[in-house]
């Protein structure tokens, strides 16, 4: 608990988390307004899944926030002060990942329900509502995906140690690399089925129960529950690897 308090103080006494949080909310809700506002009611776009389409960008900003929480510590060598105060590096980094993940969870839930509300306000008559378990998962799941993506970003931040490098790696991977791998002839589509962010989409939209059209749905073959477990495992393995390296490395 002590270490969580420490990381909370550190996170909220700098500016970037506030900025990133605000940007995430504006981006996701703004995107929901665009998507819902521009879709004619009779087309398939005005659905719960439609309101949540901006989460891809939200994830990107959250990963920037999470990566910066570590890389700025390396940039300004406060990581040394941290390890001096808490020589158990594993617990210090787990605490950091936990605090950042909790923040990401909260922002994710606010942005998801905010986006839903934006959709309902713009098209009150379109019947956007949380009617099924699939709808609920699609909305509440966003925060969970944010939290796990934040853990991955913390891990990458520890591994790479440089802000620019870590952010470039994370954004290029999440926004481009997975889709490019998909384009590799014959095997690309099979590999893509198991790539983490694609699998995370599967957890959110499942088989389209929340109104995601066929082209919005993930190609991953896992069920929704397993998809979440797979994504979580990916994040935790990455974090474990990062901690293992941080313990052996000179601070």
């Amino acid at each position, binding site marked *: 608990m*002590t270490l969580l308090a420490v990381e909370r103080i*550190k996170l909220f*006494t700098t500016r970037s988390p506030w900025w990133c949080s605000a940007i995430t909310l504006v981006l996701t809700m703004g995107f929901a307004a665009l998507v819902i506002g521009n879709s004619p009611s009779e087309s398939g776009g005005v659905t719960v899944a439609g309101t949540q389409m901006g989460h891809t960008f939200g994830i990107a900003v959250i990963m920037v926030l999470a990566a910066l929480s570590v890389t700025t*510590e390396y940039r*300004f060598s406060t990581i040394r002060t941290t390890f*001096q*105060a808490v*020589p158990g590096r594993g617990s210090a980094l787990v605490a950091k990942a936990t605090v950042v993940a909790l923040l990401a969870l909260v922002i994710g839930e606010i942005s998801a329900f905010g986006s839903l509300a934006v959709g309902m306000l713009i098209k009150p008559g379109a019947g956007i509502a949380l009617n099924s378990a699939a709808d609920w998962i699609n909305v509440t799941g966003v925060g969970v995906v944010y939290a796990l993506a934040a853990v991955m970003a913390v891990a990458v931040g520890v591994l790479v140690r440089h802000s620019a490098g870590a952010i470039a790696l994370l954004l290029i991977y999440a926004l481009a690399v997975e889709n490019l791998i998909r384009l590799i002839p014959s095997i690309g589509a099979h590999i893509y089925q198991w790539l983490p962010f694609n699998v995370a989409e599967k957890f959110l939209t499942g088989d389209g129960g929340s109104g995601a059209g066929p082209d919005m749905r993930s190609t991953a073959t896992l069920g929704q529950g397993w998809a979440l477990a797979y994504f979580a495992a990916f994040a935790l393995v990455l974090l474990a690897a990062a901690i293992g390296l941080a313990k052996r490395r000179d*601070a």
Partner: protein
Amino acid sequence: MIEANGLTKRYGRTLAVDDLSFSVESGQVTGFLGPNGAGKSTTMRMILGLDNPTSGQVRIGGKSYRELKYPLRTIGALLDAKWVHPNRSARAHLKWMAVSNRIPVTRVDEVLDIVGLTSVAGKRAGGFSLGMSQRLGIAAALLGDPEVLLFDEPVNGLDPEGILWIRKFMHRLADEGRTVFVSSHLLSEMALTASNLVVIGRGRLISQSSTKDFVTRAADNTVKVRSPQIDRLRAVLADAGAELTAEDGGILVAGMDSDKIGELAAANGVVLHELSPRTGSLEQAFMQITGDAVEYHTGLAAEPAVLEPIR
């Protein structure tokens, strides 16, 4: 209190610290001396468990740093004053450190008061001058009211007022009975603050002794003599076995103390205008002892050190 045993650190092919063993006694100021690049900072980082030694170990009060439960309460350190997030306030920086070691948060304002930063406690640390950053670093070191304090080049880059402040502060800490281990490449500074010296060059231990012994052992102690009957005196001193060198307006006598020179002069009826013993400066002692242990030679022969008596 701090005990290093066969401490070795290798970075790739460079041996930064080479089989270094020394000990720092409780309740004293021990200087850690060496030219730039001698491995002082690396050694300090290893003491704090930040860098892992390639071999050997260092213990604080018998424990390795990572075994300390709340390390800031045992050993406070200022290795680099710029290890602060520039957008975090001084108070917030100290607050998270205090919380991490379960130090009461009221202590934050106490240490800010001790170093005189109370009025800027809420300001971004990134806007601090070097002197203020240094004070913040010292406040952080004192946070856990530790018995042992570690400072790496604390006066580097400070203005005279800042240097004086740090120097007084070291004495105050020593008077409080704390163990202080402070590194520097400024020897004259060490002569004023440290009672013991650990001297290293190229990562190796050169000597560990009291500051006084270090100087007497290393420096040539000479006596300057001026006299209107200089030729007569030369003959007398040379007969008595002293080594003489001419120096502007007089001679420099080595191998004989001032008492003896005065007695010889009186016995031979020689008038003396000056008879002044000189102690070699720490710089001289240092150059003499570290000799070729300087990592990066400039190619220029070192200028002869200016003789300056130790205050």
